[in-house]
């Protein structure tokens, strides 16, 4: 490797560290992203043009064509995607990264079968890369709705863990030299892909963000391992950075939901059965309401707080909610949004969605700041949110969400809840808030119902 290339890699590594650092602060995040992107560009161009190898021209052309094709595809997807589709997009891209690592491993297995360190890294890259790939694809399918059911083999946890152990033993034998041959590596690939599928498929759709974050961390590790193979520092350090940052992010998400990582991965089924039991114990009388009554109520309110949740994202109602907010503001009502950290499909997702529909930044109030304000609030409008306003988190130690901080909407003078049915939310538990005296249920799809509400308000 030429010394220039080494220095370029060093610079890229530094841009990665600095970029990641800046990404962690709202004011500098954009700059951080650009710096990291710049470093990545540098590393790519350096790798192609400063390699000191004798390479036929047509391979250069192939590489450049590949890069052009991929860039155009990536770019188009990135600018076209709807912001509600963010989680599945990250999952898709992440899967591609994993696939890339696995492919590298396969080609390199053809070239090196002697050195034990190299074979180890190759096997690891193939296993991790393909698990990431197939796992991410399943996560993607679950999130975009193509795969609705959580398919669970009987004793799936046991099967999965056995399969994982088998994979590792298999890999060990290949490294060992006990088994070898071109075909063996494809079998390894196949089983890794299967494991990735079986790993993700039993996990509920709402847990996908955690899974994606975990898989993202794994892709980083795969990149780092490939870096060891090539003794390439930028891959190693960059990969490890993503690996450790991703893991921290994963734990942060679990913590915000008051669950453990193992509960997310292995506990899906247990969680549901508890939930089902719980659901039946709550009961009482519910009050229904309709858009025109709500319109009247809001029209004469001084202060309205909107609580957006997962259902808002699903219904794509972020634009109409913004319309509602503007209309009310014009009528002299003070409106703000209460943002729960894990409302929506991934952490911080509500911020992105509402920012996209031009909601002004200072109307989004974080949980800890808005909670004391509910006391002075006339109307709370909960749109497609459920768990994040469930008082069981405070009151019921046996509830699966017990201990999770929630938005304390109960304190408000009246509560309007928009959802389609009495079905529970992600945690699968009923919500006693719905039976509260102050609560009125506004049933219906968020987008349709809010559109009607806006219409009523306009006519007043």
């Amino acid at each position: 490797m030429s010394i220039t290339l080494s220095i370029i890699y060093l610079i890229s590594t530094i841009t990665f560290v600095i970029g990641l650092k800046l990404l962690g602060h709202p004011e500098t995040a954009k700059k951080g992203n650009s710096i990291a992107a710049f470093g990545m560009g540098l590393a790519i161009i350096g790798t192609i043009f400063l390699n000191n190898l004798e390479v036929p021209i047509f391979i250069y052309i192939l590489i450049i064509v590949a890069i052009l094709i991929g860039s155009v595809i990536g770019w188009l997807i990135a600018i076209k995607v709807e912001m509600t589709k963010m989680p599945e997009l990250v999952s898709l891209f992440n899967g591609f990264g994993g696939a890339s690592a696995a492919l590298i491993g396969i080609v390199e297995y053809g070239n090196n079968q002697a050195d034990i360190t190299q074979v180890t890294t190759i096997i690891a890259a193939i296993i991790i890369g393909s698990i990431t790939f197939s796992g991410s694809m399943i996560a993607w399918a679950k999130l975009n709705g193509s795969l609705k059911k959580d398919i669970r083999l009987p004793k799936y946890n046991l099967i999965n863990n056995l399969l994982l152990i088998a994979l590792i033993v298999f890999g060990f034998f290949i490294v060992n030299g006990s088994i070898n041959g071109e075909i063996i590596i494809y079998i390894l690939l196949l089983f890794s892909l299967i494991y990735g599928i079986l790993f993700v498929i039993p996990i509920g759709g709402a847990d996908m963000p955690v899974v994606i974050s975990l898989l993202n961390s794994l892709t980083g590790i795969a990149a780092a391992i490939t870096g060891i193979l090539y003794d390439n520092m930028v891959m190693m350090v960059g990969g490890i950075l993503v690996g450790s940052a991703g893991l921290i992010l994963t734990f942060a998400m679990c913590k915000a939901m008051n669950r453990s990582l193992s509960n997310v991965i292995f506990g899906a089924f247990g969680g549901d059965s508890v939930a089902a039991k719980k659901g039946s114990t709550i009961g009482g009388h519910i009050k229904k309401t309709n858009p025109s009554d709500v319109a009247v109520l809001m029209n004469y309110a001084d202060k309205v707080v909107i609580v957006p949740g997962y259902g808002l994202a699903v219904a794509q109602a972020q634009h109409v909610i913004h319309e509602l907010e503007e209309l009310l503001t014009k009528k002299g009502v003070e409106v703000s949004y209460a943002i729960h950290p894990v409302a929506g499909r991934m952490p911080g997702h509500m911020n992105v969605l509402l920012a996209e529909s031009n909601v002004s930044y200072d109307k989004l109030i974080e949980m800890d700041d808005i909670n004391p304000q509910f006391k002075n609030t006339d109307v709370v409008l909960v749109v497609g949110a459920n768990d994040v306003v469930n008082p069981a988190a405070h009151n019921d130690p046996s509830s699966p969400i017990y201990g999770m901080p929630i938005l304390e909407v109960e304190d408000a003078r009246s509560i309007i809840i928009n959802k389609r049915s009495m079905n529970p939310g992600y945690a699968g538990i009923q919500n006693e808030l719905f039976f509260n005296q102050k609560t009125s249920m506004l049933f219906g799809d968020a987008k349709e119902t809010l559109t009607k509400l806006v219409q009523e308000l306009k006519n007043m």
Partner: protein
Amino acid sequence: MQQIIEFLKENLQLIYILILAVFIGVEVIKNIPAVLHTPLMSGANALSGVVIVGAILVMLNADPNNYVALSLGFLAVVLGIINVVGGFAVTDRMLQMFKKKKK
């Protein structure tokens, strides 16, 4: 066991680098506000596309007559660069939206 010790001995500095990088990753990410979780995940995802460097090396090192290696390498480059370009672009788009709203 012997092999692991050998490996450790030869790659001591590497291990330091890996451990230090883990610390940095942890140190840099913890305590970031929830607002930024989504862009950060997407940005980290773009960074993991650094595997593209390996994909390019596969192609550069490939025997020009080994069409299997070349095609797999080609695919690896395409997939890797999608991860990189798409990841950074979409992160930028998200952050752009925050910025616009802020003033």
